[in-house]
Structures are given as C-alpha cells and as structure tokens.
C-alpha cells in the first residue's frame, strides 16, 4: 500500500484528530498523539519543500476548478503552513514540558489548538472563497473558545469581546463573498479573479471595502484593532502567542492574497493599504510606550509589527514582499518567545505590571536574558534575524526610490527601543528585598522550546541565505497573478 501525499493532509490530519479525540478519552496514548501531531505536521510540511519548489501542487477535490473545490500549495502557502505547524509544535511543547496551568494541559486545549492550526492551514491553502469563509469560522470558533478557556472573569470577558468582534468581522466577509457570487456566479478564487474586472466599479469598491473591514478586524489593522489589547490581556499568554504568531499571519496572508489575485493592477489598492499599515505601525508603537502591563505592551508591539508587515507587503515589489515574508517568520518567532516568557513570568510573579517585575533578573536570569535577545531582534539589531528582514524591506523601498516608509520604519524602531529598554531596565534594576519571591528553581525543561526559538533567531540572522531562495520564490508566487490563474484554470 502506498501513501499518496496531498495538501489535504495539512487540514485533514489535525481536523480528524481533533474530532476523534473525544471518542478516545480512555485511550492512554491520546495526549501524546495529540501533542506529537503538531511535530508530525511540521516534519510533513518541511518534507514537501523540494516538491513544491519545483512546481506548485494543485489538489482537486472531486471536480476540477472552477466548479469544484481545490487546494493550492505553492511556495508561499507552504511557507505559512510550515510556520503555523512550527508555532503549534512549539506552543504545545511548551505547555507539555513546563508546568502550565491545568486547564491548558488538559485535552480541550490541545484539541482547540489542533483546530486552530487546521483552520489556519485551510485558509492559506484553499482556492475556493466560500471554503475560505468556513475556515475563517473554524479558526474563529476555536480562538474564541481558547480565549475563554480559563473560565474566570477576565478570560470570559476577553472571550466574549473576541467573539462579538470576530462574528461581526465574519459577517462583513460573508457579505463581500455573497456580493462576489451574485455579481460573477463564481466561488473559485482564480475564476473570480478573471471575472472581477467586469464587475461595475462601484460594486468593486463596495466589495473591497467590506472585505477590508472584515479582514482588517481579523488581521488587527489600525481603525479596527481597538479590541486587541483587551483580548491579549485576558487570555493565557501561551494562547496569545498563537494569536499573534498564527492567526494574524493567516489573515494577513488572506488579505494580501486576495488583493494581489483579484486586482489585475495591485497598485490601485497600494496607497490605501500602505497608509493603513503605516498608521497601524506608528499609532500602536506610540500607545505601547505608556503601557504598564507586559501583555498589553506586547499586544501593541505586535500590532506595530503587523503594521510594518502590511506596509511592506502592500508595496508589492518583489524585494519588499520577500522582506515582509521574512519578517512574518521573524515576528512569529519573536512573539512566540516573548509571550511564552510572559507566561513563565506570570507563573513566578503572579502579575505582569511593570512595577511588580522589578529585579526579575535575580530570580529568572535566563528569562531576562531571552527577553533582551527578543527585544533586540524586534528592534532589528545584527546579528539577529530581525535585522536581516528589516534590511530587506528597507532595501526594497530604497531600490524603488520611495523614502517615506523608510523614515517611518526607522522612527517606529526608535520608539520600540524606547519602551523595550524601559522594561529591560526594570528587569535589571535592583530588587527591593520585600517583594522578592522564592524561586522554584529555573527548570531547564521550561526553557527548552524558548532556547530553540532563540537559537533559530540567531541562526537565521547569521545565515539568512538558508531561506533566501525560498522567500524570493514565495514572493514571486504571492505576486505572480497570471502564473496562478493559468495553473488553476489552465
């Protein structure tokens, strides 16, 4: 019997495991299976790289497009799938190895994380716009449930807020999809792209606006991201790491995938999206300056980076796109590291207020050191990988003779330096002896996943050429509208 590998596995394996899990409650190896599935997915994604590098894989389900549903695995989709499964593996590894709270070590959390990964993979892979909506809702429901998993006041409040905002966003996306279908009679994204130019201009604008509102809320862009810090503050930091590392990235991919494929000339939307990204970046960085809670600070910092990625992706030149994709990887790694550190600190200090974390470096020297490393990577200092991705983005802008984004990105980095160093100074400040809490020993097992990420940040910073070919190819795949349309529709 030969196994036929198809992209469906990236969605089917986690989905099946998640739905079958309740049937196997008594099965003793269930938890190890749920846990190791993430690693299996990551290995599977990496093993696909050589195949996909040669030609994108198109998996048709029953009927050929444009009538049927198909999955499209090209280099950029594989990049995101690999990143998501890596993030899933690291977070479940962290929960499994360290002594996280019991509600996170239980079955529901692992099942919901699997569903989240399945939905995100689906959003990236699918070539059908209604399918996209279904995956958005799968991701949404698992994210709402994960936010409220702790079931105390703060977690439920965060979960409820997330659910309300998320379902409104989903309605706007659905509205746009309905209008697209009524105008063109197509659901296949490639077929829609061919027909999109024939839609009346006002309708195009309306559809674009509805999509932008829906996806903008989900991808946490400026006027629509008022809710983000509350959710990040309310849910567990382990889960927040997934929101910032996986969810937002999946929605950013969808936003730009649709922009680049539906619009024959992406420069129409370029200035608007770039402005949105720039405002998101600057506003978030400025607000982050005066945050007193570590989770809120990290949430705003994450928004700032999302703005930067949007700014670079919207410019739609190959160099900035490759840089932005690299920054997506870096930002996921950095925010995983920072939020997991926040989880460790919360366990130790029971509060993440600036004042309560004074002198943290005495009790948690490794955590403080890793925080410094991650902060330097966010700022983009060599030899860390954040430096290389920011450099690529800046080089892309300067090659196109566009200088205002460069100035804004550098200003944003300066503001970032301001608040990250404020936190670092507090961590290394002398402790007042009264607030000192007895350490339960720095278990190295807690830090294993974090050290892995830190190692990756350094390796990618020193040797960016490891990813360079893949990223360039991914940027071409993301921008290559005609190639994709021809591949799908023939």
């Amino acid at each position, binding site marked *: 019997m030969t196994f036929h590998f198809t992209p469906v596995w990236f969605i089917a394996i986690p989905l099946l495991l998640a739905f079958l899990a309740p049937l196997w409650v008594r099965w003793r190896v269930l938890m190890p299976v749920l846990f190791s599935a993430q690693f299996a997915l990551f290995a599977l994604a990496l093993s696909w790289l050589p195949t996909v590098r040669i030609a994108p894989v198109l998996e048709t389900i029953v009927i050929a497009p444009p009538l049927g549903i198909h999955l499209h695995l090209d280099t950029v989709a594989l990049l995101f799938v690999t990143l998501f499964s890596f993030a899933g593996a690291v977070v479940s590894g962290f929960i499994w190895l360290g002594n996280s709270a019991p509600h996170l070590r239980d079955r529901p959390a692992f099942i919901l994380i699997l569903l989240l990964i399945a939905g995100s993979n689906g959003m990236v892979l699918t070539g059908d716009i*209604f399918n996209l*909506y*279904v995956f958005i*809702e799968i991701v*949404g*429901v698992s994210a*709402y*449930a994960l936010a*409220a998993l702790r*079931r*105390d*006041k*703060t977690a*439920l*409040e*965060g*979960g*409820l*807020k997330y*659910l*309300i905002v998320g*379902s*409104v966003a*989903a*309605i706007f996306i*659905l*509205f746009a999809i*309905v209008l697209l*279908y*009524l105008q063109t*009679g197509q*659901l296949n994204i490639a077929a829609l792209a061919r027909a999109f130019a024939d839609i009346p201009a006002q309708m195009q604008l309306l559809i674009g606006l509805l999509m932008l509102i829906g996806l903008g809320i989900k991808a946490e862009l400026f006027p629509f991201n008022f809710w983000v*810090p*509350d959710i990040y*503050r*309310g849910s567990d930091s382990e889960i927040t790491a997934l929101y910032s590392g996986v969810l937002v990235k999946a929605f950013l991919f969808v936003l730009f995938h649709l922009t680049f494929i539906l619009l024959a000339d992406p420069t129409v939307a370029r200035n608007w999206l770039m402005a949105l990204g720039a405002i998101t970046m600057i506003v978030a960085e400025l607000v982050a300056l005066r*945050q*007193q*809670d570590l989770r*809120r600070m990290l949430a705003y910092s994450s928004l700032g980076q999302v703005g930067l990625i949007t700014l670079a992706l919207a410019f739609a030149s190959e160099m900035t796109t490759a840089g932005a994709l690299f920054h997506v990887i870096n930002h996921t790694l950095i925010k995983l590291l920072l939020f997991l550190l926040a989880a460790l600190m919360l366990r130790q200090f029971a509060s993440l207020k600036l004042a309560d974390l004074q002198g943290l470096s005495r009790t948690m020297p490794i955590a403080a050191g890793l925080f410094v490393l991650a902060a330097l990577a966010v700022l983009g200092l060599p030899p860390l990988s954040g430096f290389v991705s920011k450099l690529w983005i800046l080089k892309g802008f300067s090659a196109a003779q566009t200088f205002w984004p460069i100035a804004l990105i550098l200003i944003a980095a300066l503001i970032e330096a301001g608040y990250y160093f404020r936190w670092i100074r507090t961590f290394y400040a002398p402790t007042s002896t009264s607030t000192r809490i007895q350490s339960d020993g720095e278990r190295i097992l807690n830090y294993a996943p974090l050290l892995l990420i830190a190692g990756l940040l350094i390796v990618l910073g020193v040797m960016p050429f490891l990813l360079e070919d893949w990223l360039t190819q991914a940027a071409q795949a993301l921008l290559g509208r005609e190639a994709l349309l021809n591949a799908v529709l023939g």
Partner: protein
Amino acid sequence: MLNFLDTPAVLHSIYLIGSLILFFIGLYGLLAKRHLLKIFVSIEIMELAVYLILIAIATTSGETAPILSDGLTAFTGMSDPIPQALTLTAIVIGVAVTALGTSMAIQYHRLTGKVSVTEMTELKD
C-alpha cells in the same frame, strides 16, 4: 393591477431593500444595545439579512428545485442550488458561534452577575 410586482426586477429590489433594512436594524442593535444577549440577537439579524440577500437575489419566482424527478428530465427553469447550499452551511456556522457565545455569556453572568458590555472593565488598566 399589481402584476408588475411579480417581475423579477421589482421583486429583487423589494427583497434587497428589505434585507438591507434588516441589516441596518442589526447594525443599530449592535452599536446601541449594551445587553450581551441583545448584542447576539443583533449579530444574528445582520447575518440573517446577508443570507436573505443571497437567497433572494439568486432565485427568481417560478423556478423549481434542481432535482430530476416527477417527470422532470431536463435542467430547465431550475434555480441555482449553490446559494441554498451556501446558506445552509452559513446558518450552521452561525448557530455554532451563537451557541458558544450564549454559553459564555451565561457563564460570565453566573460568575459576575453582569450582563452589560459597558460593565466589562476587568481588562482595562
């Protein structure tokens, strides 16, 4: 006298206007009401309006279900089945989300006794 109401163009605009009114009623409720359950109801109304637009515009009166039976042998005068399938899927998703939301709201009420979003200030600094 009122036969002109049956022409597809007029029917579709009536459906469209009605659905849009529903949509804005939902939007108003979402923005103006503070009770958690009322917010869920408003979200549901907005969703419903979107389903109605899809179903109403995609079908014209007089079309039959696309099933070959009862002497029907050819696909003529049949309605497009895709919007109906999509709407069914979307309804199921909507129910799941609302059920999750309601259960969370109930649990929140049991814990804190609050029902209004303006009282949800635990997460602010």
